[in-house]
């Protein structure tokens, strides 16, 4: 998922701020991004869990789909209910290829009956926009928003901090949103995120992003958080990372994302099928025994980090799968992982061996999230 090596790195509208804050910048999704600030990954992770962290996620792709047929058109690309999503609400979605593999995972928001706001992964955005344009460009306008930055404010004190600047924003509940003026900036705010904590994502014109970020960082609860902690926070929350835990060869059923596929799109539903790869995906939903692999959470029983691509075996030494994300969870304080395993070994409580540097590290299949989520549902 990396950009061509020769391509010059892009920068976000907050690049000068990151450097001023002493961030360590790394290439990510074709951008120069802050992996951590001087406080370090561990402190940043823990601060987000106990107060509020500000993340620059402007590398992600933002776009609008506009037109009376936009919802129906977008629904034709995903195994997800788009048509019935009420105005003012947000939902998780999955672009699928014709084999049912996941092209990208995304968030979409119903701005109006005839307008949908979509946020996709940075590393996938060029391909996503081309795919959406090619498949439904005749049915609605596909309008990329490269002139917008995206900030995330996450943590149990995020609402307190943001409501001080934008009274009323604390009335939003999880997966809803609206327009707010914050520090004179024209913000579109949703109550959602990628940490498992309460929090917000804020789309703002690029020219106003620096002002907004500095105003947010001036709040006593808020510290800047890098991509390193973003990854450990999302993994503790049991959330998939595209490119690690999801890719074009994994289906939503294999990825244990059944919750993202509403009944109306499943066999027997009023709008069943009609999305790319529907035959395969619906067959897997209807007959789970046909699955050859399934995503699970794992906790190590020894304090040895187990990282992506680590082979998993039965206690008897038979290969049953592979880790796709893994690290020592800073809040959970144990090594955790997401992995794909043979469905026979996917039940919670199953013991498996991770082969780390030739040695077996015992792990146990466990339910996710690893750290309880604290979304604000009103």
């Amino acid at each position, binding site marked *: 998922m990396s950009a061509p090596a020769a391509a010059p790195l892009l920068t976000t509208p907050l690049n000068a701020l990151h450097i001023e804050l002493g961030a360590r910048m790394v290439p990510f999704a074709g951008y120069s991004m802050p*992996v*951590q600030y001087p406080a*370090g*990954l*561990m*402190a940043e*992770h823990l601060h987000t869990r106990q107060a509020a962290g500000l993340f620059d996620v402007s590398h992600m792709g933002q776009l609008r789909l506009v037109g009376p047929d936009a919802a129906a058109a977008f629904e034709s690309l995903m195994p997800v209910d788009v048509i019935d999503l009420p105005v003012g609400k947000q939902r998780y979605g999955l672009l699928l290829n014709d084999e049912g593999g996941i092209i990208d995972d995304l968030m979409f928001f119903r701005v109006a009956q005839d307008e949908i706001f979509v946020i996709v992964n940075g590393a996938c955005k060029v391909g996503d926009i081309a795919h959406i344009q090619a498949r439904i460009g005749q049915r609605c306008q596909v309008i990329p928003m490269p002139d917008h930055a995206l900030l995330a404010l996450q943590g149990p004190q995020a609402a307190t901090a943001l409501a001080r600047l934008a009274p009323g924003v604390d009335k939003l509940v999880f997966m809803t949103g609206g327009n707010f003026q914050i520090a004179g900036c024209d913000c579109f705010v949703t109550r959602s995120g990628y940490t498992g904590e309460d929090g917000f994502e804020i789309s703002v014109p690029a020219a106003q992003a620096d002002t907004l970020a500095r105003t947010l960082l001036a709040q006593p609860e808020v510290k800047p958080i890098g991509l*390193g902690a973003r*990854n*450990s926070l999302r993994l503790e929350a049991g959330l998939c990372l595209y490119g690690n835990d999801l890719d074009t060869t994994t289906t939503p059923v294999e990825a244990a994302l059944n919750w993202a596929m509403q009944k109306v799109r499943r066999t027997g539903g009023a709008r069943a099928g009609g999305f790319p790869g529907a035959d395969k995906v619906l067959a897997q939903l209807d007959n789970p025994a046909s699955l050859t692999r399934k995503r699970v959470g794992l906790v190590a029983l020894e*304090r*040895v*980090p187990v*990282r992506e691509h680590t082979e998993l075996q039965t206690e008897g030494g038979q290969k049953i799968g592979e880790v796709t994300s893994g*690290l*020592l969870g*800073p809040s959970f304080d144990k090594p955790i992982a997401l992995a794909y395993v043979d469905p026979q070994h996917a039940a919670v409580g199953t013991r498996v061996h991770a082969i780390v*540097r030739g040695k077996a590290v015992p792990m146990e299949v466990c339910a996710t999230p690893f750290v309880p989520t604290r979304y604000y549902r009103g």
Partner: protein
Amino acid sequence: MTIKFSKDHEWVNAADANAAVVGITVHAQDALGDVVFVDLPAVGTTFAQGDVAGVVESVKAAADVYMPVSGEVVEVNEALRADPSLANSDPLGAGWFFKVKLSDASQLDALMDETAYSSFAASA
């Protein structure tokens, strides 16, 4: 006694050639971030210079620990195993990794002194 440094960002203090102390540098621990795990070699194992003798891991990354000199491991830092954050808080002191009985003390001559290592690390 001077400390010598390798291009792989280890340091070795050979004040006692029968128990030269090896650890990772300030630069190395800073690049890794918060260390959460170390894998130390078994006492009695003999390694050649450049062999992988251990592993050091932060939340975000894992790195091999290379032998800066050839020799036999005679002691490992159990306190570091129990509290890997010592590699961050005191990398040149309490955060040492293991001690080595040197098999070829002349290898020390080719390692960098502190001044040379500082400019090497700054340009790395």
